[in-house]
């Protein structure tokens, strides 16, 4: 008999918070003990998340750590970067399992927070204790972890598309281009002129073409996999889509190295992903979904990965698509929770998306 896991969600009003609630309601062994929101305290959750009407009578509460301490075993923190730091520290001190969806515990090197996030990390010692929450790379560590730092929504697909290549092939580690296209839900629930529908529809808007923060964690994870330095050249664009990320990775073979053809790439990706429950290799000869497309993963915890090789330019194009709110955030967090609590990793997450959408 599997014991019920008592779960708390801090920051339930945002899109990630809402997605956590949706998935946790589907989870057979979870009881949502509390969900907090400063702005919406006292409201039914379905006021903010209409998809949950009639599925829950939960209400938002104010953050009260002692109450959370008594009622919860696991806590998800879905609050902005910087705000999560103290919260996670306190929950950790109270002996709770914490899954943080902000960036505050993703980077091992405290210096990196000054460079990429512009703040001094207050708990550098906790950075060693926290585990980067990508099960495909850190499953064993996550089992024993007290703090799991959930990956960024663009970092997750980029790392998954790239790490088999950099590990198995001799590629130019300073010429890796990651060109991302992302939906509007990644911008969060806060309103701005750029999220105003007449201005946000039909765009292909390059909003962060250099210095994107997720670069830091992609470089961290890939260097760890290879034990060598790597430089990621990342650019992000907003496109007309609500959910979804497509990372198009351009990787160049070094002068002397070569691959006969794409079967080599099949073998490499199978080696790492054939028994990964949430990775699907998508490289089709027929049909209209021949390579990964976020449309095919929206609402699911899948990461679709595809690839092509162009001998003329000695370039491998690796593509990865996720739903930024599911495998890019809430689904991944619950996958980590399952691992931390010793239950089957896929519990409550093996969901089909909608087609068409």
């Amino acid at each position, binding site marked *: 008999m599997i014991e019920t896991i008592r779960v708390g969600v801090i920051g339930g009003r945002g899109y990630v918070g809402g997605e956590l609630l949706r998935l946790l309601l589907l989870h057979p062994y979870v009881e949502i003990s509390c969900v907090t929101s400063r702005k919406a305290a006292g409201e039914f959750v379905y006021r903010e998340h209409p998809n949950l009407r009639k599925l829950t009578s939960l209400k938002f509460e104010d953050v009260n750590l002692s109450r959370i301490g008594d009622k919860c075993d696991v806590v998800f923190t879905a609050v902005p970067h910087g705000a999560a730091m103290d919260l996670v520290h306190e929950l950790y001190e109270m002996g709770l399992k914490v899954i943080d969806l902000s960036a505050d515990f993703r980077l091992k090197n405290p210096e990196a927070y000054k460079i990429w996030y512009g703040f001094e990390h207050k708990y550098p010692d906790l950075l060693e204790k926290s585990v980067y929450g990508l099960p495909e790379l850190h499953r064993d560590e996550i089992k024993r972890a007290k703090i799991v730092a959930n990956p960024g929504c663009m970092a997750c697909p980029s790392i998954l598309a790239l790490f088999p290549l950099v590990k198995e092939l001799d590629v130019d580690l300073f010429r890796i281009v990651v060109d991302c296209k*992302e939906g*509007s839900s*990644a*911008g*969060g629930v806060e309103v*701005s*002129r*750029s999220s105003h529908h007449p201005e946000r529809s039909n765009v292909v*808007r390059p*909003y*962060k073409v250099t210095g994107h923060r997720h670069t830091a964690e992609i470089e961290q994870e890939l260097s760890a996999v290879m034990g060598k330095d790597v430089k990621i050249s990342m650019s*992000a664009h*907003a496109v007309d889509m609500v959910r979804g990320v497509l990372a198009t990775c351009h990787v160049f073979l070094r002068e002397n190295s070569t691959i006969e053809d794409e079967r080599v790439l099949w073998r490499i990706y199978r080696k790492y992903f054939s028994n990964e429950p949430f990775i699907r290799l998508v490289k089709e000869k027929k049909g209209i979904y021949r390579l990964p497309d976020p449309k095919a993963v929206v609402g699911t915890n899948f990461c679709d990965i595809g690839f092509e090789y162009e001998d003329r330019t000695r370039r491998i194009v690796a593509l990865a698509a996720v739903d930024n709110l599911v495998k890019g955030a809430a689904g991944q967090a619950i996958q980590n929770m399952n691992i931390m609590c010793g239950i089957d990793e896929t519990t409550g997450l093996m969901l089909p998306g909608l087609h068409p959408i």
Partner: protein
Amino acid sequence: MGRQVSCPECYAQIEVADDVIVGEIIECPDCGVELEVVEVNDEGVKVRVAEVEEEDWGE
């Protein structure tokens, strides 16, 4: 003919009205940076980039 000043951000040559005064804010037509006039004399006009709070505009 108004005087010209070079934008420190993008080197655009910006037309400045004859009656420009110190403290005035002029916007560079090319890159949109806001420039504060800090000195006006017969040799020319000096400007520096005015502080503007970085508007979070993207995802």
